[in-house]
């Protein structure tokens, strides 16, 4: 880092924006969730033992031939449509050639001059409701590469003694979505970056064409950033920060690159066109390789695969199957549920939109559904280190629990216990309440009255206050009564009995 021409201290974000305008561009790779790979029938699965989800095609063995996964083409068309793209009537695959151990054939089968989808856009809503249109250049099909682990003393590529390769990921279907240069985002660039990647993730999740887990690399973003002096229109030299795999990291990486570029340019330096690596720990980027020969991929049409033709009828059939766009759906649900903007954002951030929507559809009010999912279910999931959705709580369970509460047969506290028993697989709420005798103590046998009398006898000072008109003091009797009835008392009934005993009108 002695070269002062290409390196300088980053400016603050504000200083950077006083002097420069950012130009952004994103390449988002989406792993499709087909059962099998793009060009072979090996399984597309995550988390298995290394090199066990492979066959001769994934390993690029001599003499093997690829065959296109029709489902992956269908998914790519759906994604293209959701991105408001034109769908190519005819397109083909191409070989992108480079030597690197993650690609055993020495080329990646991709699309080059004829992508399956092109000329689209996404309207991205920022936090304050401002809508920013991002133009989509193209979305093309390709295959993922194998996974390298760098071994050696440092554990990083620099100073690694050797690398280990797992080809399980090799050949997993990808769609790469490339934006046109995004001009005019200004100070909202980093926020737009996060919102854009988030929107793409929501779309592929909504289409159910990807598991869309960024932490697993199902959705990965390469962020291109350049800065041009204010008042000019010629784009500066860009850097490309590779494989940023969380929404927060996308926002931070764009922020940092805007500041870094501005620092170098302000000091009279030159930006090197290069790839950069995101460093989560320091929230900075580090230099990767310069763009050079390595980018001379010598693309040519893939001779082992025949072209793909899409008919208008097929495309329209797929268009008719598209779900409501996620952004539209959010606007609709926000209005329908009556949550505050903050409550709704929290629900979206927690990834519980679908769960609450389904629970509301099962007859539970939106606020009650939100309370269950954001409260007790999230708490139980956290304790088990799971996503709330992974607990297996069905909307009908919440509907049943809520029904038992409204009927006064159990109280909130017992309902939470019942939920734990449901998760433990003991049956429906109704079955559990019956089997475990959890129903609120009714006063048919006088048990509740007895418990109230006991509590009143033990707390004469409280009784005195109530008698003097401080009805709030009844709360102090609820605890002892609950204790006596193992939590199965109905607080409303306890209050009635106390008031009756003291001859006070409720």
């Amino acid at each position: 880092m002695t070269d002062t021409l290409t390196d300088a201290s980053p400016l603050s974000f504000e200083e950077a924006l006083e002097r420069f305008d950012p130009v952004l561009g994103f390449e988002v790779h989406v792993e499709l969730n087909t059962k099998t790979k793009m060009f072979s029938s090996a399984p597309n699965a995550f988390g298995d033992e290394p090199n066990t989800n492979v066959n001769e095609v994934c390993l690029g063995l001599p003499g093997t031939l690829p065959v296109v996964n029709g489902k992956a083409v269908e998914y790519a068309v759906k994604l293209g449509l959701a991105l408001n793209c034109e769908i190519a009537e005819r397109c083909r695959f191409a070989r992108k050639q480079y030597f690197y151990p993650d690609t055993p054939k020495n080329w990646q089968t991709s699309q080059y001059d004829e992508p399956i989808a092109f000329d689209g856009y996404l309207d991205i809503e920022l936090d304050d409701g401002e809508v920013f249109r991002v133009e989509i250049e193209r979305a093309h099909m390709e295959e993922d590469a194998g996974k390298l682990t760098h071994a050696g003393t440092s554990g990083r590529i620099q100073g690694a003694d050797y690398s280990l390769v797992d080809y399980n990921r090799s050949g997993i279907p990808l769609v790469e979505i490339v934006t046109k240069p995004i001009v005019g985002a200004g100070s909202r660039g980093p926020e737009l970056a996060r919102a854009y990647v988030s929107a793409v993730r929501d779309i592929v999740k909504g289409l159910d064409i990807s598991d869309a887990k960024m932490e697993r690399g199902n959705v990965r973003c390469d962020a291109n950033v350049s800065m041009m002096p204010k008042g000019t229109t010629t784009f500066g030299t860009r850097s490309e920060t590779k494989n940023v795999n969380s929404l927060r990291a996308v926002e931070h990486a764009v922020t940092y690159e805007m500041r870094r570029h501005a620092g170098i340019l302000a000091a009279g330096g030159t930006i090197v066109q290069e790839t950069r690596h995101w460093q989560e720990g320091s929230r900075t980027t580090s230099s990767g390789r310069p763009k050079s020969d390595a980018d001379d991929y010598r693309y040519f049409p893939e001779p082992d695969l025949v072209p793909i033709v899409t008919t208008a009828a097929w495309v329209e059939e797929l268009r008719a199957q598209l779900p409501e766009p996620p952004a539209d759906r959010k606007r609709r649900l926000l209005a329908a549920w009556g949550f505050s903007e903050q409550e709704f954002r929290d629900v979206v951030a927690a990834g519980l939109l679908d769960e609450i929507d389904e629970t509301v559809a099962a007859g539970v009010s939106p606020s009650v559904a939100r309370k269950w999912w954001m409260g007790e279910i999230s708490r139980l999931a956290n304790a088990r280190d799971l996503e709330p959705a992974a607990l297996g709580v069905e909307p009908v369970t919440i509907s049943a629990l809520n029904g038992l509460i409204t009927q006064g047969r159990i109280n909130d506290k017992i309902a939470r216990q019942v939920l734990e028993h449901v998760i433990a697989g003991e049956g429906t709420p109704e079955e559990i309440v019956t089997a475990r005798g959890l129903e609120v103590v009714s006063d048919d046998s006088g048990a509740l009255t007895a418990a109230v009398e006991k509590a009143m006898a033990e707390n004469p000072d409280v009784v005195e206050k109530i008698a003097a008109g401080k009805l709030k003091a009844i709360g102090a009797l609820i605890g002892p009564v609950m204790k006596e009835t193992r939590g199965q008392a109905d607080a409303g009934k306890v209050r009635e009995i106390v008031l009756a005993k003291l001859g006070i009108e409720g």
Partner: protein
Amino acid sequence: MSEISRADVEHLAKLAHISMTEQELEKMAQELAVIVDSMATVSEAVSGEIPATSHPLPLTNVFREDEVGHVFTAEQSLLNAPDAEAGRFKVPAILDEE
């Protein structure tokens, strides 16, 4: 006659990871120029109305059902590996991405 310089051949050889001597580079530059010229005669036979051919076979949409087929065991996958460790192919460290 097409211009294929020695530098062009050297660049291609480097990209293709092919080691070539000075003599080979010179010779290949001349031969490639002839090959490119020969290929160029094809375009003379094509009139403007004929669309470019993507593929020699008159086929489109050869698709496979999305159904899982056979896989190798890790041992089978690694049979041809020059070296392996922990079920993975072991290769020299190459300074590049990741």
